[in-house]
């Protein structure tokens, strides 16, 4: 369980904006994160927190500007051998855009099956496509369909089947259910859970919905303004947040959670601009615990318990209150 | 912000202008035939031609020739017309007012007819205006200009004897060329107006305007038409730019002494200095208008002010 | 006490592919000062219902049957001019997506000021109207309202834009505010602030709030009563806490189960998706997905049965 398979060190990613690329938006700013085999690690944060960018970097879809990412013995920065690339797959948020509108489900799956190197006869491709569809709760009847003939949930199931065709070890699921209706959301989350149980998948699960995180994840990384605020086991973090931002997020959430967080932090303010973030701790303008020191120094991510890290100098105070 | 934008656009335009001058320079260089021989005339002796070649600097390497050409263009010297012996710039300046007058008249007429027609067509698709708009919309851009021009001459000059068939001088001379050009412009203008208005009518902010209880006429003027103007202004800019140089055919048919006709004349008499100069001026105008359109766009649409 | 009384409201969309039965036989009331949430999945008809109450239903949508009484006045029989007076003053709307519901080419202050102009309180150019707009912007906690007055929508964050939309909606102290997914495009911490603001304004002004949402969590947080819609019909209504703790209708049960997630369990939510509203299944529209469905369900006619404080449209409770 505790075998680290993806290791991200001091990851920095900037995007250039404006006509001349004069403005730099630092989407991810010095992040360390590890992903363990067979676990689900959730990246949680609001829009602009850098969770999507970080997720893509962790599976080698984006190259960091600084820092290193390794998957087992391979560095994720340049081109990967095909069989390694295949082991890191993605499922995206928007089911409408994640399938090529001109391809039938058959072609979509066949492409993935061939790319996985499972080539062979047409019959075998067809067999494999059907078994993939059955794995995700669809049937051979879906093979002739075009994406626009599928419902949102069905599209997302096909996208999952396409990822599974590669026989991945790690799947990055970037808000896979946020565009769906409540019941379909639950269906897809349940499917993800079952697939993980059956195939020992490792998930990097990006979400802003805390009940989904609660359902699926073993560990959570709370992100704020391009940095990690807090990392740790899901249950511990939900019960005992150590970062004031985590507490604010839990207080704000309308998700139905089994218990209220111990600490209530009234939500105020908005996330800062990543072009010119506040100095020191980026959360200090919204933080009820902020002191002079918070305005001046960037807090380091430090260990406060087994597997728990937090980037707040007042973490002990937060935990006690 | 605005200053930065201006600087950026200015730089972009400068690069484009250099490119345009280079293209025009090369166009003449790769012309079939020897420019020195052309200038000297068929009767000139071989020595005279060589002499002229040296005088014109045509014996020097290409990049030196370009540098010389470029510098003279920058100093406002577009060369001399071999036909009239006059500076090219003088000839162009004499023609420009005619082209401008025709372009302004045609564009104004097109806007005055097409924009209201497009608006009514969007609001009442099943009205007479709606059908008229669809007909104008496809017909205007499908009829060849030279043909409509000839048909109008036939109808109004030959049969009805109401208007002169060509030339310039009185306001009556302007009527037919203006009408021909305006009809051509109207096709696209009606279509864009109608489509743009339909798009804005379906936009969410219009629902908000209704939800305030705002009267329909205010919703229309403040929230629909104004927003629909953005693509219309862009198209008008492109059209006006095209008119300045692209009214070649109308000017030719009606013998209108504008810059477009100058282009055609100089092609036929192989007066390449004039051709180069005229096209350069047209391209400059075209770019200037695009720039101006961007500025107007910034006035209408605050989102474009942040770049 | 009753402010809004909707009776047998039926709305259809006439499309080339057929008639969409978007809302069928909707009957419910909203009391003064009450927060009622209409909850349903996309395509359940909840937005259509809200739009028709606000008089913003657009063709091809049309009210086929039923009445909407607002303070005893039948809104479904109102002419355009009378509607215009009520809309924006007595009944107002806050929309889902703050990015597209504001005019991108007009500064936000003027867009708020237009509400005053629309109801005969002076031109948007007048200093007095501008001042009132600034006060309203201050009321929805926009900082530096006199500076923000001149901002264009793209210069504001999503949360700020939503505050501007709320400012328009509360400017004339409405009796009924309809909020259509007011927070679903926003981040959690902003969403909480907006919900707090709405609740605070409702108390202060004594208005009623009709909340349209797909998010049971949002509904549970601020609504007194919840109305659950499925495929164009009301399937259940009752007190929010009761619905959350003890859902009766099989659809409501599935819905509640799908938001009250336990860690890593099989959830047992029904498969399938809502039916087409052009040719809905006969009888109970949920029966093809329902674990309790019997023969009778296909012949059943939509009825809301009373059970304690609850109304539920399922033959199990007949």
């Amino acid at each position, binding site marked *: 369980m505790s075998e680290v398979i993806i290791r991200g060190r001091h990851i920095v990613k900037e995007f250039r904006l404006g006509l001349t690329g004069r403005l730099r938006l630092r989407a991810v700013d010095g992040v360390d994160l590890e992903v363990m085999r067979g676990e689900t690690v959730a990246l949680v944060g609001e829009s602009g927190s850098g969770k999507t960018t970080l997720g893509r970097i962790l599976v080698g879809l984006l190259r960091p500007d600084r820092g290193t990412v390794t998957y087992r013995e391979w560095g994720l920065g340049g081109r990967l051998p095909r069989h390694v690339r295949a082991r890191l*797959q993605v499922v995206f948020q928007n089911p409408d855009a994640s399938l*090529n509108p001109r391809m039938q489900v058959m072609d979509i799956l066949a492409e993935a099956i061939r*790319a996985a190197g499972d080539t062979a006869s047409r019959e075998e491709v067809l067999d494999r496509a059907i078994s993939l569809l059955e794995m995700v709760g669809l049937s051979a009847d879906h*093979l002739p369909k075009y994406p626009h003939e599928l419902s949102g949930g069905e599209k997302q199931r096909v996208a999952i089947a396409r990822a599974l065709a590669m026989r991945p070890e790690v799947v990055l699921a970037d808000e896979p259910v946020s565009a769906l209706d409540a019941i379909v959301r639950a269906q897809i989350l349940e499917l993800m859970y079952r697939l993980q149980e059956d195939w020992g998948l490792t998930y990097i699960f990006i979400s802003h919905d805390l009940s989904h995180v609660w359902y699926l994840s073993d560990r959570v990384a709370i992100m704020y303004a391009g940095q990690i605020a807090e990392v740790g086991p899901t249950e511990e973090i939900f019960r005992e947040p150590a970062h004031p931002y985590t507490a604010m997020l839990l207080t704000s959430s309308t998700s139905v959670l089994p218990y209220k967080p111990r600490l209530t932090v009234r939500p105020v303010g908005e996330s800062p601009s990543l072009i010119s973030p506040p100095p020191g701790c980026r959360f200090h303008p919204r933080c009820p615990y902020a002191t002079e020191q918070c305005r001046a120094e960037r807090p380091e991510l430090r260990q406060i318990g087994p597997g728990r890290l937090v980037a707040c100098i007042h973490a002990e105070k937060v935990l006690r209150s | 912000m605005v200053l930065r934008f201006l600087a950026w656009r200015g730089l972009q335009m400068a690069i*484009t202008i250099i490119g345009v001058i*280079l293209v025009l320079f090369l166009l003449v260089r790769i012309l079939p035939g020897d420019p020195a021989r052309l200038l000297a005339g068929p009767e000139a002796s071989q020595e005279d031609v060589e002499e002229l070649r040296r005088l014109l600097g045509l014996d020097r390497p290409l990049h030196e020739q370009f540098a010389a050409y470029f510098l003279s263009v920058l100093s406002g010297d577009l060369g001399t017309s071999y036909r009239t012996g006059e500076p090219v710039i003088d000839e162009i300046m004499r023609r420009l007012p005619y082209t401008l007058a025709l372009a302004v008249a045609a564009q104004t007429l097109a806007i005055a007819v097409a924009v209201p027609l497009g608006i009514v067509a969007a609001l009442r698709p099943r009205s007479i205006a709606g059908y008229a708009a669809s007909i104008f919309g496809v017909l205007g*851009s499908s*009829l060849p200009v030279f043909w409509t021009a000839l048909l109008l001459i036939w109808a109004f000059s030959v049969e009805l004897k109401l208007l002169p068939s060509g030339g310039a001088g009185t306001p009556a001379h302007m009527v037919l060329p203006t009408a021909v050009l305006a009809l051509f412009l109207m096709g696209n203008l009606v279509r864009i107006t109608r489509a743009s208005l339909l798009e804005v009518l379906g936009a969410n902010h219009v629902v908000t305007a209704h939800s305030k209880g705002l009267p329909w006429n205010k919703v229309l003027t403040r929230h629909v038409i104004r927003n629909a103007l953005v693509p219309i202004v862009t198209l008008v800019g492109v059209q006006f730019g095209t008119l300045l140089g692209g009214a070649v055919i109308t000017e030719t048919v009606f013998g209108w002494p504008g810059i477009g006709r100058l*282009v055609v004349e100089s092609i036929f008499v192989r007066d390449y200095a004039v051709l180069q100069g005229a096209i350069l001026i047209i391209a400059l105008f075209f770019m200037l208008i695009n720039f101006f359109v961007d500025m107007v766009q910034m006035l209408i649409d605050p989102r474009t002010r942040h770049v | 006490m009753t402010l809004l009384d909707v009776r047998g409201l039926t709305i259809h969309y006439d499309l080339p592919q057929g008639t969409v039965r978007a809302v069928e036989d909707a009957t419910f009331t909203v009391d003064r000062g009450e927060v009622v949430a209409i909850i349903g999945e996309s395509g359940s008809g909840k937005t259509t219902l809200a739009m028709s109450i606000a008089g913003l239903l657009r063709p091809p949508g049309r009210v086929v049957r039923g009445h909407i009484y607002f303070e005893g006045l039948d809104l479904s029989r109102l002419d355009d001019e009378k509607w215009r007076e009520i809309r924006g003053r007595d009944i107002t709307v806050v929309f889902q997506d703050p990015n597209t519901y504001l005019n991108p080419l007009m500064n936000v202050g003027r867009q708020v000021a237009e509400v005053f102009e629309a109801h005969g309180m002076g031109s948007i150019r007048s200093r007095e109207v501008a001042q009132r707009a600034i006060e309203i912007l201050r009321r929805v906690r926009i900082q530096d309202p006199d500076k923000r007055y001149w901002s264009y929508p793209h210069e504001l964050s999503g949360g700020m834009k939503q505050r501007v939309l709320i400012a328009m909606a509360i400017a004339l102290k409405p009796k009924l505010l309809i909020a259509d997914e007011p927070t679903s495009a926003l981040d959690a911490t902003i969403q909480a602030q907006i919900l707090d603001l709405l609740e605070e304004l409702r108390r202060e002004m004594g208005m009623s709030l009709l909340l349209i949402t797909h998010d049971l969590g949002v509904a549970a947080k601020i609504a007194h009563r919840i109305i659950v819609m499925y495929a164009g019909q009301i399937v259940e209504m009752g007190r929010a806490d009761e619905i959350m703790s003890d859902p009766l209708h099989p659809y409501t049960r599935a819905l509640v189960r799908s938001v009250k997630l336990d860690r890593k369990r099989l959830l047992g939510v029904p498969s399938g998706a809502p039916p087409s509203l052009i040719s809905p299944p006969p009888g109970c529209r949920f029966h093809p997905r329902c674990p309790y469905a019997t023969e009778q369900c296909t012949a059943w006619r939509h009825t809301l049965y009373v059970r304690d404080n609850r109304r539920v449209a399922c033959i199990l409770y007949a």
Partner: protein
Amino acid sequence: MSDLVRRVKAAKRERTAQMWRTFRANRAAYASLYVLAAMALMALIGAFYTPYDPYRIDLSAALGFFSPAHPLGTDWLGRDMLSRIMEGARYTLGISFAAVLLGAAVGSALGLISGYYGGLLDAIIQRATDVLLAFPTILLAIALTSVLGVGILNVVLAAGIATVPIYIRLVRNLTLTLRNEPYVEAGRAMGLSGPYILFRHILPNLSYVIVVQSTYYMGITILIVSALGFLGLGVPKPIPEWGTMIGDARDYIFTYPHVVLVPGVFISAAALAFNLLGDGLRDALDPRMATLLRRT
């Protein structure tokens, strides 16, 4: 098994059939298809058979109006107008078609490369496009023919090159959008190669837009080609390219307007049909394209 394969293929056919049904519902576009088919047929027949020799001068029959012997009349040299129209169809339509093909192929290829690979190549292509876009299209075509001289191939080149920058812009912008589509990113995650993604995922989604745009450009190019002919910068005389016919006949407008009227009707009909066909194709191939086309 084979039953499934059959169903997959049937669904593919059904999708095509659905497009065809949408297209046919647009009556103007459907009618245009017939008009264009008739014109193409006319051009084809014209290559082998015309009622009269289109180049034979017969002054005794000069300037005849419509008659059973000469359905479209004769011109001032007594040449049969119908025969000349049939002969000219090959040139006007053929040259326009070749020019659009050239412009679309070169422009799309450059736009695709520019948009997909970016970098220095993109910068160079973009600056060159800026320069070409600084000239009004018709002027660019005129300037090119004046350099290249009269000739069929030269008209194709001039009219084709004149549209290249417009295709580059369109295709580049679309490529930039498509490149970031999640299904393209998923393809990258699967380890699909750049060229494969380009041809399998980007190009097919682009191709519909290129086809529709090219249909519209057929309309515009017919006008440009005939305008060049009208000015005497097109095909060499005495080839009866339709625009050239009008240009040669313009002095007779005062006395015998039919010599101008007839070729003009054909040019207009062809241009109109392509414009209407474009609308029909746009709606049938992809309803979302209307916004896509306008945005770029």
